[in-house]
């Protein structure tokens, strides 16, 4: 594993199963439909979620939103569970979102910022995991610069691993909260048949990769648009063989074609920290050609949703008046993120592995 490698799907721990999960057949043909059972101990990416399981996450998230609306937005579901949040990369919203979510479920939360931990003394990744587990962690939320690191963690950690973002590879909770936000806002409550555009630096984006997965699986007409240097190889990602056969997916550098009649436009952060140079002539040129401005947004359908996973480079990939405009659901994404993470922590906590 080297930082910044183009991520192929990493090896998957055995109990996750490889490839598309088949919807659990309704063997118990009870007169009233039994809800699908949740069987994942870890959440490493969205590619293992069946349509039924995604539906279960959405419904559980609805329940968590109701909890968040209460006078006391806290329930005892994870009382006694230690959730350790281990982030090897900078983050505000994802880390805080996980922390708030875990605390709302009454879990005990331990936060480890690697900059102030023994990691700087040279402790290995696996040693850190062993230490955290010995200190009582039952669930581990992990962010790592190396694609695939959570998969390695899942093989060695006795509890549940939640991927909080790994390298360029995956950011499953972001993809799920994006899907949830779209479904709440789109007429009909579904992304099926809707034109969704991911605009910008998809190459370095784990958010894009997880979203490509979940949105094409949900039946969206998905477009990824950006400079050729920042969308290269994405077609191959979509065609890597484990997705629904009938999905609609277009990669282009033609921003007008991409935005025309779009129902959702998701701008991505230009990840300057992952640029090894030579990918863009200049920030100004990027902004002029691919930035989401009011003029460009006018190509989309009236009322099209504007999304951004954050943090925003204002005036680079998105104009401030668009990010804060009436069509923007960016703050809603953040709020839904807490409910989605509560739902996932709750569901994962019900599946225990051999210790």
């Amino acid at each position: 594993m080297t930082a910044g490698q183009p991520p192929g799907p990493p090896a998957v721990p055995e109990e996750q199963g490889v490839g598309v999960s088949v919807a659990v057949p309704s063997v118990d043909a009870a007169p009233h439909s039994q809800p699908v059972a949740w069987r994942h101990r870890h959440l490493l990416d969205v590619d293992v979620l069946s349509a039924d399981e995604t539906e279960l996450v959405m419904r559980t998230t609805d329940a968590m939103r109701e909890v968040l609306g209460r006078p006391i937005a806290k329930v005892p579901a994870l009382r006694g569970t230690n959730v350790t949040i281990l982030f090897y990369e900078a983050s505000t919203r994802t880390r805080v979102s996980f922390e708030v979510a875990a605390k709302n479920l009454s879990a005990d939360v331990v936060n480890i910022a690697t900059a102030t931990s023994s990691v700087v003394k040279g402790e290995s990744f696996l040693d850190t995991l062993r230490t955290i587990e010995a200190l009582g962690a039952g669930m581990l939320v992990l962010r790592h610069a190396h694609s695939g690191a959570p998969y390695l963690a899942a093989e060695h950690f006795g509890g549940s691993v939640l991927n909080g973002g790994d390298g360029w590879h995956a950011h499953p909770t972001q993809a799920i909260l994006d899907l949830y936000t779209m479904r709440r806002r789109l007429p009909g409550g579904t992304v099926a048949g809707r034109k969704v555009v991911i605009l910008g630096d998809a190459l370095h984006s784990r958010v894009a990769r997880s979203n490509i997965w979940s949105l094409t699986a949900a039946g969206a007409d998905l477009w990824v648009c950006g400079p050729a240097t920042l969308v290269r190889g994405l077609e191959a990602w979509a065609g890597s063989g484990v997705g629904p056969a009938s999905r609609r997916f277009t990669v282009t550098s033609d921003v007008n074609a991409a935005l025309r009649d779009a129902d959702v436009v998701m701008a991505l952060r230009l990840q300057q920290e992952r640029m090894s140079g030579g990918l863009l002539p200049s920030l100004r040129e990027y902004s002029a050609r691919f930035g989401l401005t009011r003029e460009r947004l006018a190509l989309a359908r009236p009322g099209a949703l504007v999304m951004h996973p954050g943090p925003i480079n204002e005036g680079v990939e998105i104009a401030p008046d668009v990010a804060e405009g009436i069509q923007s659901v960016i703050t809603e994404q953040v709020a839904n993120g807490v409910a989605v993470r509560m739902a996932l922590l709750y569901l994962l906590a019900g599946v225990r592995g051999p210790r």
Partner: protein
Amino acid sequence: MSGRQIMSADELRRATVRISHEIVEKQAGTNGLLLVGIQRRGVPLAHRIAAAIAEHESAQIPVGALDITFYRDDLSLVAQQPVVKGTSLPFDINGKTVVLVDDVLYTGRTIRAALDALMDFGRPSVVRLAVLVDRGHRELPIRADHVGKNVPTSREESVRVHLVEVDGEDSVEIERMADLAGGAPAA
């Protein structure tokens, strides 16, 4: 339908109506009265009681739904997380008389969880409990104020309440656990 029927649709209806009268009598009216059904079958029962009160008292009693999943004390024991059905308490419970409604009272653990959940929404002046069937075997110091039918059972038996709104018919059955194969979870 494999078990032995212990309440018919008519008996179930009469018990619901009687409970509705008892609730109003105990409250000496309908002022400050709220009904809160416990998911799942407590919710339609609460609506039926409210409808009966509306009929004989000409008063509309607000009805809420309480999902106690997140408050269960056995989350670490069950193999899989129970599916959440949702809570909806679209009213202020502070200072009110809340009547919790459930289908079967057994160990009392569901009611314990429901009380915890309710208290997170405010401070009712009184909480009462109405159940369609009390089958005994309490594990906690909890009793019902209004009972449709007391049914002596053994722990090897399961009491299953069927309601039109959920199950397509009204009846209460009792059966041996050994006879159970899948289907709705026993109360």
